[in-house]
């Protein structure tokens, strides 16, 4: 094997050099105007240009050397490793799973339960606020939203670009009903879910006869309609000002988290006054909501309705030939997904204390959909990982102070998050076209439960 490689060596090196030079030339052509020339305004407000040959040289050198190394060394090395593996006869599938891999879900759950206390232990009471709120709660909200959308997109195969509408319905249901009628969080949480599910059905009736691209466009429009109604129906929603001072959630009505209240949680337990305890409480609420979503999804998949959803994704016509009422099946998928969106929305309103149409723009729908696709449609674990990567990643970008030393003091990493988002998605889709977890767990088995490879499952046609 090595002899074979050595035999190829002279030709290989020549090829590597050639490809390296070629890559350098392409990079030079591409970056000449973008990087090599910079325009700026001088003191007289005139637009002048200067050259940055040094930076251009670095770009070209990276491209050329990178290509040279890839062709000359990395690829032959990878190939020889693959060949060695094939010769030794060890298939990658038969590799023993590591302890971490086998017990991943249990470890992850244990970590999540301990997470707020770990954060408090490490960063102190006020220091942990950021980790519990910005990372913990924020990520879990998106996990829940993505798991809700997963029912519609991942299981039933209906492309829904307006999912944020149901999130908005849930949030405004809580905000308005609690402000006007003084209902508590625990009453309004299920109510918001039911209202959102109801809106899902109302939208579903006219829309679900459409398929594929047409369905996507109409759901997109529905998302925008809800947002525009929220902006323009100022008598009720107060328009772009939003609704502020939304009541906090209480500890099942026993203790309140309002500072002035007599049954204040911190006072009752003799804790120093800090908002971190409320955040920790919210963390566990959203964690419980996420687990509920996961539990219901897992149970539903093993029920006839869940199987019908997946069958619908695979082939709608075959479904109808088997006596499945596809309209009802689609509606239940839409309503169930919308309901979880509504739960998440009412939680969001309680956590934020403020809702405005700004929070429910199309970008949110796109991010949630991206999480579902990136995670692997239908897979709860994959989607949770994708949510951590996507949402946690953007939060992490705010922390990247050291990048300022590299790119200069006026570099704000948050502004590049969409760029990095796109880049990350392209890379993931190149290497894992079916998402992080591409395979699907069968819902029933006779002898052994074998995961179904992603190459067999379909994405649905709407």
């Amino acid at each position, binding site marked *: 094997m090595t002899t074979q490689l050595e035999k190829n060596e002279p030709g290989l090196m020549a090829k590597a050099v050639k490809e390296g030079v070629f890559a350098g030339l392409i990079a030079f052509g591409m970056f000449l105007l973008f990087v090599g020339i910079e325009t700026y305004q001088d003191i007289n407000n005139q637009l002048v240009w200067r050259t940055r040959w040094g930076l251009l040289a670095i770009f070209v050198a990276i491209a050329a050397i990178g290509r040279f190394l890839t062709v000359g060394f990395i690829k032959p090395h990878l190939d020889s490793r693959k060949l060695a593996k094939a010769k030794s006869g060890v298939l990658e599938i038969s590799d023993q799973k590591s302890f971490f891999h086998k017990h991943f879900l249990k470890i992850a759950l244990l970590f999540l339960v301990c997470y707020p206390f770990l954060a408090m232990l490490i960063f102190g009471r006020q220091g942990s606020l950021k980790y519990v709120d910005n990372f913990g709660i924020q990520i879990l909200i998106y996990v829940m939203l993505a798991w809700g959308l997963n029912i519609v997109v991942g299981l039933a195969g209906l492309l829904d670009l307006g999912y944020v509408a149901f999130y908005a319905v849930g949030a405004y249901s809580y905000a308005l009903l609690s402000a006007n009628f003084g209902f508590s969080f625990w009453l309004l949480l299920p109510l918001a879910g039911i209202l959102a599910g109801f809106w899902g059905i109302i939208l579903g009736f006219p829309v679900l006869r459409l398929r594929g691209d047409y369905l996507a466009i109409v759901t997109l429009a529905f998302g925008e309609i809800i947002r525009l109604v929220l902006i323009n129906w100022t008598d009720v929603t107060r328009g772009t000002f939003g609704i502020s001072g939304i009541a906090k959630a209480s500890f099942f009505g026993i203790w309140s988290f309002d500072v002035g209240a007599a049954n204040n949680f911190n006072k009752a337990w003799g804790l120093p006054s800090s908002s971190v305890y409320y955040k920790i409480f919210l963390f566990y609420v959203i964690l419980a909501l996420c687990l509920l979503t996961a539990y219901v999804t897992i149970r539903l998949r093993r*029920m006839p309705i869940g*199987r019908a959803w997946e*069958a619908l994704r*695979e082939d709608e*016509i075959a479904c109808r*030939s*088997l006596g499945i009422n596809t309209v009802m099946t689609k509606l239940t998928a839409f309503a169930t997904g919308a309901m979880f969106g509504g739960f998440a929305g009412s939680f969001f309103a309680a956590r934020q204390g403020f809702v405005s149409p700004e929070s429910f723009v199309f970008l949110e729908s796109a991010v949630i959909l991206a999480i579902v696709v990136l995670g692997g449609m239908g897979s709860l674990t994959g989607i949770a990982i994708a949510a951590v990567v996507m949402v946690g990643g953007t939060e992490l970008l705010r922390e990247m102070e050291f990048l300022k030393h590299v790119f200069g003091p006026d570099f704000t990493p948050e502004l590049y998050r969409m760029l990095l988002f796109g880049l990350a998605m392209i890379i993931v889709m190149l290497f894992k076209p079916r998402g992080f977890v591409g395979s699907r767990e069968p819902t*029933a088995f006779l002898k*052994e439960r074998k995961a*179904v490879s992603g190459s067999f499952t379909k994405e649905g046609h709407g």
Partner: protein
Amino acid sequence: MATGTTMTSNTASNMAGDTLLKVEHLSMKFGGLMAINDFSFEARRGDITALIGPNGAGKTTVFNCITGFYKPTMGMITMRQKNGEEHLLERLPDFDITKKAKVARTFQNIRLFSGLTVLENLLVAQHNVLMKASGFTILGLLGLPAYRTAAADAIEKARYWLEKADLIDRADDPAGDLSYGAQRRLEIARAMCTGPELLCLDEPAAGLNPKESLTLNALLRGIRDEGTSLLLIEHDMSVVMEISDHVVVLEYGQKISDGTPDHVKNDPKVIAAYLGVEDDEVEEIEEKLDKGVIEEGTV
């Protein structure tokens, strides 16, 4: 609408040989094209009825009308069940034709749920039974034992058909992973899991090798002997002549012959339709064969 389509007749006859499916004056127009023109035939209970004809004769269109995928322009399709219930198929939505009228079908281009396992494919087919048992999901979510027994029964039924279709060893593999012949058999097994009284097969032997054709014949006979009648479209004459009890021949949307396989085989009109003889030659042959001897179907 559902009430209007169900008529319970008093004489509930369970005897084999009575009419199961009656198609009367069926016509289907696509724009200006008359795909089926005043087509009538009957399928008897316990029979394997074959619908044959040259390419483009309208066989699949007839199938789609019977199974509700097309709404016929004219005509009446009556399905009479064992218990005497009658359904007018042209008035039912497609899924109710399987659910209520108990007519199942397969497709010319196989339509399996390729990402689901073989077993799951058969469980999806039992959707309506399981939905009822799970109290439309709500009772099932609570984990009541009634649903659990129903689910176990469904798996047993699936196991039975997997054994019949010789797929039991592949039960936990994705359906898309099966060979072509196995996919055909799975599609038939899946249709049978809906518990039909009439099974409509659209070219079940297409693309099968001779050996697979033989096992298919055995499977179809087994299905008939268990009390499900069959209606099949087929090009493979070895299959048609071998297993069918009754053959209907269709050309240009019109029936040209109707009878036993032997009768149809010797019908000059059928020979003409398949071999492409000129019209006047058909008349010549007919004259030679002495008009009165062969009873032709209504043309």
